[in-house]
């Protein structure tokens, strides 16, 4: 990152008209034992490895990209993670980011439940939104996959998300609708029973039954939360349209922060997905995908790093914002595990080994660059995270064992 210095990094980070007023500097409730949250971010085209990995092993201040991070002492960069059986792939590899299921590019690929959803089942029930899954674009899928391996549609419209989280509702109308929908569900249950008796195809009915059972619990969850007023939060979303991509990334992080601070959810995923089109970030304009296939050309890499720096500057802002919100004996960041990673180790040649993986916050002992001795299943880390969140899982995806990488 010879052409980028600290000043640029901070300047780009601060380029958006973003007041700190949305911080409010204290998390919701401020209870004695703060709840633990978790967030996963997938940067779909990875990071240019020579810029993100430190020049000197173990020393994060020799990472071009990370040395300026304000919360450097609260993050760990892992080297040498991969998903076994997936050394190379195409862009479908993003589907496996939180599942570890191999051959996502195959026509017969069936995904499995993603890590965030396993966590949401365990810790999501206590908040208004069991989980939130964000993406930049409307592509129909992101990081989160349900227990049958189907993509959970993402949230991508910032104003809509804000409104969903904090907007006022017509409570009476909502109550009536929920009551009516309960009746509709009862009716549908009756018809399913009847269809079963008359010998209709069971596969279809089982599938449908599963979905309406889920919908029914969702309605109950919603009815319960209808009695609690939504938190009041000032709308701090940026409307800057000069750098639309930056604004979007910034806003999604901002929404994540607001949702975590108000304890509206405890599980978030964010897919930093891409389109073929050109994007405009401070210092560069170009097709992110086109640039990611840089084939080692310096000029292309310089442009590509502008995009990656832009993303990381928003990430930096997000982490330091969380770290300024005090909660319990520490900060919101100490009670939120933030995993920033990618499905690609090197998007230029579509290889999926050495996946760049940052774990930040969560109250672990950090400030390290942890280069693992040999290629290690990323699912080992995922399994450890499940254990950290008191989920007694024997295995997750391709995990071999809990390696105790995150020490308290």
């Amino acid at each position, binding site marked *: 990152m010879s052409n980028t210095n600290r000043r640029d990094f901070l300047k780009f980070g601060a380029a958006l008209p973003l007041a700190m007023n949305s911080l409010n500097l204290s998390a919701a409730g401020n209870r004695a034992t703060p709840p633990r949250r978790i967030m996963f971010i997938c940067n779909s085209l990875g990071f240019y490895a020579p810029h993100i990995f430190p020049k000197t092993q173990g020393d994060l201040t020799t990472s071009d990209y990370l040395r300026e991070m304000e919360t450097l002492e609260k993050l760990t960069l892992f080297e040498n993670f991969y998903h076994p059986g997936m050394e190379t792939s195409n862009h479908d590899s993003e589907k496996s980011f939180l599942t570890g299921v191999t051959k996502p590019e195959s026509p017969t690929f069936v995904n499995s439940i993603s890590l965030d959803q396993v966590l949401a089942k365990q810790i999501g029930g206590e908040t208004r939104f069991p989980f939130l899954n964000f993406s930049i674009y409307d592509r129909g899928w992101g990081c989160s996959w349900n227990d049958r391996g189907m993509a*959970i549609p993402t949230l991508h419209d910032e104003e809509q998300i804000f409104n969903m989280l904090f907007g006022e509702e017509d409570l009476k109308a909502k109550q009536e609708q929920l009551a*009516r*929908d309960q009746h509709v569900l009862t009716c549908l249950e009756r018809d399913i029973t009847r269809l079963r008796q008359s010998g209709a195809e069971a596969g279809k009915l089982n599938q449908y039954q599963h979905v309406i059972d889920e919908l029914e619990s969702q309605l109950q969850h919603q009815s319960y939360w209808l009695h609690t007023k939504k938190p009041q939060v000032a709308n701090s979303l940026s409307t800057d349209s000069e750098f639309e991509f930056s604004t979007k990334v910034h806003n999604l992080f901002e929404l994540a922060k607001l949702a975590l601070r108000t304890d509206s959810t405890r599980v978030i995923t964010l897919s930093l997905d891409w389109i*073929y*089109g050109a994007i405009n970030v401070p210092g560069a304009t170009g097709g992110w995908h086109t640039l990611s296939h840089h084939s*080692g050309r310096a000029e292309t890499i310089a442009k590509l790093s502008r995009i990656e720096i832009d993303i990381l500057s928003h990430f930096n802002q997000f982490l330091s914002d969380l770290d300024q919100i005090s909660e319990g004996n520490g900060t919101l960041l100490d009670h939120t595990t933030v995993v920033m990673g990618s499905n690609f180790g090197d998007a230029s*040649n579509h290889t999926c080994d050495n996946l760049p993986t940052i774990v930040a916050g969560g109250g672990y002992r950090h400030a390290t660059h942890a280069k693992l001795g040999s290629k290690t299943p990323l699912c080992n880390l995922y399994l450890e995270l499940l254990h950290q969140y008191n989920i007694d899982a024997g295995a997750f995806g391709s995990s071999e064992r809990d390696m105790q990488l995150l020490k308290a």
Partner: protein
Amino acid sequence: MLFCSYRFMCLRMRCFALLIATVAAVVWSDLSCRGQEAKQLISDYCFDCHDTATQEGGFDLESLLQKVTFDGSLVFENLITGKMPPRDADQPTAPQRQAVLNWLANRQKESPPAAHRRISRHEFVHSGNDLLGIRLDLAESIPEDRGTHDFDSDRRILLTKEMLGAYFDAADEMLDFALPVDGYSVERTWTTGKIKDSHETYNIYTRAYEEGLLFSWTRANNGNSYSFFYDGFEPPEAGWYELTFDAAKIGEFPEDVSLQVYTGKYFYADDRPQPQRLIGVISLANTKVESHSMRAFLRPGENVSVHCYSKHTWRQKEGDQGAYIKQLKVRGPLIEQWPPMVFKQVFSELAINAPKRETRPTNDSRTTLERIGGRLTVSSFQQGMGKEKMQDGSNRTFWHTRYTPTLAEPPHYVILENPAGEAILGFTYATWSGGNGNGLVKSYSVFASDDGKNWGLEPIAQGELETRLANEQLIRFPKSTTKRFLKFLVTDAVALDGKSLASIGKLDVIAAPPAKSERLQITVATPTDDALQQVIRRFAERAFVSTLSDDDLAPYYQLSRQTLSETGDFVAAAKVGMKAVICSPRFLYSPGIHDNIAQEAGAACARAIWLSVPDPSQFPDDRLTARSVREEIGRMLHDDRSRRMVRSLCNQWLNLRSFDKVAPSLKLYPKYDDLLNHYLPLETEAYLQHLIHENLPVSYLIDSDFSILNQRLAQHYGIDGVLGQQMRKVRLDARSQRGGLLTMGSVLKVTTDGFDTSPILRGAWVSANIAGNTLSPPPEDVKAIEPDSAHATSLREQIEEHKNSPTCYACHKSIDPYGFALESFDATGQWRAHYRVEQPHPGTFQYRREGYYAVADAVDSSGEIDESEFENVLGLKQILLSHHRRVAYNFAKKFFEYANGYQPTLKQRLDLFEMIPETAQNCRMRDLITEVLVYSFAGDLE
């Protein structure tokens, strides 16, 4: 009795076997003995190149054949399409080829597709609309669940909680639109000739002309189409409106002037442009004023705006050419027929009480303060800048405190009187948008009083205002007030020269909206249980495409009856039952549960062709023959609703759903604009529709002597003499490179990133969607490494590196060449001889008509495919046309996948290939579609 669709599938499979047995009786009869023979044939004809020793193209067929799990589809495809053995090698006889194909098809282990699929969001919305007799496009508000699958119908996609939840919501919205809870509004009309304020920079491109305005404008300095917003009309509720522009073309040139009509939230030009929807284009050919009407769905909060486009009216200050609009007339919300269609379709045999629906003009252009009978007083005013300027609807005129002959001392304030004691919720405020900024209000306090004298000590509201924002700013009081006097006190204002001044562009009160305008309630005359059951039955039978016994109907009817007995509201009771019907597994899965094969075939065909349910009159009974199915399919294809199928094919097969994801660089392609962006995909849709409608040969997909164009598209393609924006059939010059899908701008654009073209992406598009190449998956043990191209200078050289790696080249030889042929077209689909390279520019303005680029290397569009060389795209088309069966076979496979939600098995592909006539002339689009549908949904009928 229930007809189980799975049994139908099994039955159909048996019939395939019978069919094939007749076609290739000799081969089929003793298939089991033929494995050895087939292997011998493969050895005879393939091993010269593909044995373990040679492995041409990295393909070792000899070892693969020894594996039980060997996937034979690549060999099958290359053999059936005649790609292999290569032209110059020994060819098997037709029966030999068939024998190997049969053997391959028979031994292939294919996991059976799921027995059903969930219907897509588009099918849900179209069906709901058709059932209720409305047009409400909600598909965009329902999440996309297609993932990375090509077709919406893919059976691997399962219904999710999120989708069902979205359908629950969409069902409510559709039912409330068809049967509004508080009744229907009367129809209103508006007439306006006034546009809202715009920045001076922009305003010079409109001027008063005769009785209206002349718009002369092309695009803003940042490349956007800057729009002018009409004042005097806001849609009071979501619905369809008819917009009539009385307008004329002004200018002495042959081309039409285009009026682009958008809708969106009003923005003042110093704001960054807000997203707007293009709702229509009006093509002005005549220099005398005529009425041009269009219909659009508008929602409250949206304003109508216009933008004039003509290649002749390029940003002329006080321009004398462009579009003259005398006035805009609006009518709506429109209800196609009264009583609304839903009463005919769903409540048809019931007597109803419906009041007459009248049309009433809206003449209320008053401000809210005027409407509530209020008035203003001010602390002081400068001559000519009086208080009335705050109420004239413009922030280019303004109230200003007195500065000459003497300077008015603070406090500066405005008092708004509320004589009727209406509930006031707040103020709307806008700055004066001109001047040097002196006097703009920075902060304020609001005080309330009963008598206009005693204002109390505490303001009821206070806050700060933006000084650089010309848009209206809302000042909401913490709680509403009915006090008779409200004082807007300026507590701080811009004072450039140290003097205390204040100025305001617009100020008005926010009051509760006028009492809800009269609503028309339609009631059912005899709201009995029987009538309710009749309504639910009619609706459910059409939605499920089945006859229902009382027991079948019971859950839905009971739900409605329960609501009726609880609320006494017949329509509300019917609505909840209808909601359950369209959220039912009987509705959300295809194939559904039907009573007989006629219903099943009818439902399946309507899903494929209309993305909806059949009409009640279709497939009335089970007397069904393959011939009558063909006739019904013909009728359905003829119906306007078949456009939904064509649009789906464009979006899913040709991937035009990604068309709008990328905006071309205006530095490289400065002529690209909204109008072109609007029409490019329409060309493809209209062309495909035409091929199907006219039953033209499949070869027209590749090349054609016509396309469906209009003035803007013809300009883009460099074709003269096409006037007006109506799409019509245009003959192409015999030497034209255009014609067929490959050279359409939509297709050429969808595969680029807006800057550069990518021969790989374009090549892959042609290879997969048109040529139908089956590519072997990358070998498992090989890293998919990018060719080392750091030293390669041109893009072409970079890509040619694929040749140096047999692993890469095995597939890329069937991808890259198509892309090379299309290199003669830039990222917007215009023909080019040279590449363009973006140039930096020092200016403030980001847009200029000439763009910012330098002309670079010449384009080389030559290549070699299927062992034939070509010089350019014309040569490529000839090569593709010489194998019409490949193109037709590929289309048949794609259409089969579209209609059925899975890729045909090898056995089914044998049948599909059989459907394709030997001669290109006989191989026609509508025939092929019809045969694939009959084969898919009524295969066992005679």
